Every structure is written in C-alpha cells, then in structure tokens.
C-alpha cells in the first residue's frame, strides 16, 4: 500500500475500478485501453472489449498503439468490417460502456477534439471526431478519462465534437436519447459524476494528496462538489504491478519508444 505512483497511474487505476465484469466496452486507444485491460487482468476477467477497428471480444496481451494493431485481431473472438461495427454493434445498441477523451471538456462533459479557434480558420486543427460523435450517444453510458488543466477543462468549448449532457438537465432526453451519457469523468486529480438534476459534472472523490485548491486551479469553471466527497483509495500494490507489467510488455513489444 501507499506505494509511490504517478498521477497517470492513479487516473488509469481509478477508471479501471469503475468497470464491471459484465460490461461490453467500446475502447479507445491510450488510457482507456490501459484502464480496460487493467480491469480485465484484475477484477473483471470476463469484460468484453471491442475496438472500433472491428475486433470483438479481444484480449490483447500488450496494449495496442493503434486502434487496429494485429494483436487485437489475433486475440479477438472474431473481427467484423468497420461498417458492420458501426451499424450492428455501436448503433445496434450492443455496447454498455464507451470511453472517450478529448482536448477540451466543459462542465456538462461535452467534448471537443476538432478545433481550437473558429472551425474555418482554426488556431489548432485537432484530429477530429472519429467514432466519438456516435459513441457518445449510442453506448449505454460513457466514461471519460482526461488529465486536468485550465486549457483542457474549459468554461466554453470551441466546438462540440461529441455530446455529453449538452446544456444539462434533461437535454439528452429532449434530443430523444435514452442512453445515460457521461456517468464518470476520471482525471489525474479526482473523480466526477453528473449531478442527478443539473447533470453538471461534480467531484465525488478526490485522489490522495490532491487539494481542492489544486482542482480549482486546473478547472476552467467553478467546480461543484457532491454532498459527500470521498478520498479515492490509493492504488494497491497489485494494481500497480499489473499496470506496470502491462506497460512494460507493451514497451518491449513496440520497441521501447512506443511506451
């Protein structure tokens, strides 16, 4: 216990803990992939992982660098075409949980991965939405993993790439959606969940050693706290070991630079 760990490790482990053994996850590359596979290698051995490249029920031994590494296909139950993936599996409503991240997030967990600045004359052209616009609405619920900073946790998005809770309240329902939207936002500092009424993302747990002051400094809006705020349990030795071994295997497999 109480071993030394990095904020990124706390973030990944906190996200992994929130995953359930019977979840069917649409997994993104990077931290979502690490969190999902950590869950699979610890408390959720039967969790079903799906990557948008078409691999169903995959069990990668090393983390993929891309969304379609050969490792994902080799260890999958089967692999479907990308149109089928988006039609039968995502839109078909067969995913219980989607993972998203972004360059910018607002208090209602709407995300921007498209542009900083105006769309037609961007200051920074980001990669774009990819699968996110439909992941955000078709999955049963959404977890978001993002490191906090004033630049990324902003009061107003330059562009809404994918819907979170929109303008809050019943906005999703008014758009005809029956899915829950973002139910968890896990950062390097804390865990947020939507307020039951307003749907504003509110802190429900603070990671060990993190102050409210530090959260304030790294959030571009006045942070709300739930009535009861827990302290996140620090990573256990077992969690850290499994995660680090996963990263080490990955680094060896990708040729060191890729870690």
């Amino acid at each position: 216990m109480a071993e030394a760990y990095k904020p990124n490790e706390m973030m990944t482990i906190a996200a992994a803990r929130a995953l359930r053994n019977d979840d069917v996850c649409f997994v993104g590359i990077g931290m979502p992939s690490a969190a999902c596979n950590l869950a699979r290698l610890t408390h959720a051995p039967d969790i079903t992982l799906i990557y948008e490249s078409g691999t169903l029920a995959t069990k990668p031994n090393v983390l993929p660098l891309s969304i379609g590494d050969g490792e994902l296909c080799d260890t999958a139950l089967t692999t479907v075409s990308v149109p089928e993936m988006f039609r039968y599996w995502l839109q078909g409503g067969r995913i219980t949980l989607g993972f998203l991240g972004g360059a910018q997030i607002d208090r209602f967990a709407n995300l921007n991965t498209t542009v900083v600045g105006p769309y037609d004359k961007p200051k920074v052209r980001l990669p774009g939405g990819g699968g996110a616009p439909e992941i955000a609405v078709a999955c049963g619920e959404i977890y978001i993993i993002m490191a906090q900073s004033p630049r990324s946790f902003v009061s107003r998005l330059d562009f809404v790439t994918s819907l979170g809770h929109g303008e809050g309240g019943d906005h999703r329902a008014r758009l005809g959606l029956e899915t829950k939207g973002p139910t968890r936002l896990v950062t390097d500092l804390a865990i947020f969940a939507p307020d039951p009424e307003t749907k504003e993302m509110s802190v429900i747990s603070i990671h060990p050693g993190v102050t409210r002051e530090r959260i304030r400094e790294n959030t571009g809006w006045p942070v709300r706290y739930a009535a009861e705020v827990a302290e996140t349990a620090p990573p256990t030795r077992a969690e850290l070991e499994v995660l680090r071994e996963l990263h080490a295997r990955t680094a060896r497999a990708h040729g060191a630079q890729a870690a």
Partner: protein
Amino acid sequence: MAQFLSLSDAVEAHVRDGDSVAMEGFTHLIPNAAAHEVIRQKRRHLTLIRMTPDLPYDQLIGMGCADRLVFSWGGNPGVGSLHRLRDAVENGWPQPLAIEEHSHAAMANAYEAGAANLPFALLRGYIGADLAKVNPNIRSVTCPFTGETLAAVPAIRPDVSIIHALKADRAGNVYLEGIVGVQKEAVLAAKRSIVTVEEIVDDFGPRNANAVILPSWTVGAIVCVPGGAHPSYAQGYYKRDNAYYIAWDPIARDRDTFLAWIKANVLEKGPEVFAEIVKPLRQAAPAAKKAARKGALGTRIAKAAARLFRGKPGEAGPGKTKVKAKPGRAKQTKAPARKSARRRAR
C-alpha cells in the same frame, strides 16, 4: 475483369488529375506504396477520401496533390498530429486544403451506401454535435413509419479506390483477412480500383466458406507489392512498424525536413523498397499466430505467441532500413503472377 499491372502502369491508368481517390485500410493494410506512386506521378487537384488520413495522406497533402480532403479522424494514430495536414489547414501550405469532415460512423455508412448503389446513407448520427452545423453534406430524413429524424450523408462513390490486400489468385480474385475495415466497400463503391497485394498465388486453397474475397470482375488493376502496406501491417506477413509512426512525427513537423524525406524516400525510390523495409518485421510462424485465436485457451497461448513474435526492437526505423534499399526506381515486373506461391497453404 482484374488486370495484372505494374504499380506505375496501374496508377497511370487509373488515377487522373482531379479525381476523387479513396485509399482505405483501417490501421491494417494501408496502401502506402500506392500512395507513394501517386506522389511520384505528381497527380494534382485530387479529392482525397479516407476515414483516417494518416501518413500517406499527410505525404500527399504535403506534396500538394490534394485540393480537398474528406475524412473523419486526421491524426497519427497513437502518436499525435499530422503536421502536413495541419499546415495545409492552418496555413494553406503548400496550398489551401478544403475539408469535408464526418464521423467514422457516417463515413463507414457512406462507403456501405456507395457499395450498395444508394445515393445516401442513413444513420443515427451527429446528435447534439456541431459537425452538422459546418458540413452542408450532413442532412436529415424523416422515417415514414415512426416520424423519427435520422442523419443522412451522401454515399461515397470515388472515381478510384486503392487498397492493399493479402493476396490475389491468378484469376484476379482478391483475398482479405483480419481487420478488413471498409476496403471491400471502398472498391465496390468506386468506378475504378487498384489493389496492391502481398503475393499472387495459384489459388487460395482451403478456406472459410465466407472468406472476405473481392471477385475478379469487381477489381480494376492488381499489383504485387510485397510490403506495400508498410508502415502499417499485413496480418500474417509482417507487423505494424510502430516505431516508424513515432519517427514520422519529427520528420513531418518541418517543411524542409519533410521535403528532403520525400525526395530521398519516395521520389528517388520505387515500390521495391517496401519488400526490403518490412524484412525485419516479417512474422515467422503464422500457424502459431492462428493458434493464438483460440477462444478458451486464448490468453495463455497468446502470451506464448507474443513471446515468439517479438521482433528485434529499434531495427525498423525509417532511417536504417531505408538506407539499405537500392536507389533508383526499378520498374515493377510486368509478370508478378510468376511469383512463387510461397504461402499457398495459409
């Protein structure tokens, strides 16, 4: 009926200035060798279509081949930005680039609609998202039964689609396996097509009754370009060159570095360098790989397999291996069909 051509002949015959060109391959089987040939042949005013415009489109855009890009995710996967794409969009270098931006779901559906000869694709898409506000090609239709509103995007019908596949047989049928992406749809949706393959075999041999095959009469040109997907991969042939994707970042950041790299690695080279560059990435034992796909035993065997297939890290960077390749542009043989059917039993 598919014709067997050299890569230069295939691109010359099928890719014209001003064409809409889809080069597809979702992480797996990206037709990089063919993209280099398009750069060498200096095509201009292309509309480039691709869900994930990664390295080949960064290169085409940086070389001024494209007026327009239709895409859904424009990054260097697992690494970061596409600097040439950003430079074109943010600064208009080397020329302005118009973009038509979609989501993955919309593009996948649009290819599917193109293959199905429909004028548009229908999806539950873009709900609450801003893309529909900036892209006039995102519209809607009303369900005549439920009254629901659904998103509609135009079918993708490229002038020419280019893909890389595992193998072709001598009759001109094309075999795909693994992450098959939207390649079949891209070819079926296009007016013309070029398929580069790892090898040409006498016949595909015993196979799953539902194997993913593009029949000969749906394919335009077939070109044998071993390694032609590098730095992406060809399942069972060679691994993804992850280090290469990482190495691309600093090359593409700077205009001059980029141009020098293109000169040395594309303009002064030919498709034969791809066979050379994938040598250290080749996988020795596809049989063991197959075993790794066993359901219940999956994890244990996968671990063993992963140990077996771990290549020598670091050897695959673009610098080192490319230096070994012969300079000058050797023309691809006109008779790739005579290549031995090395992996027939697969």
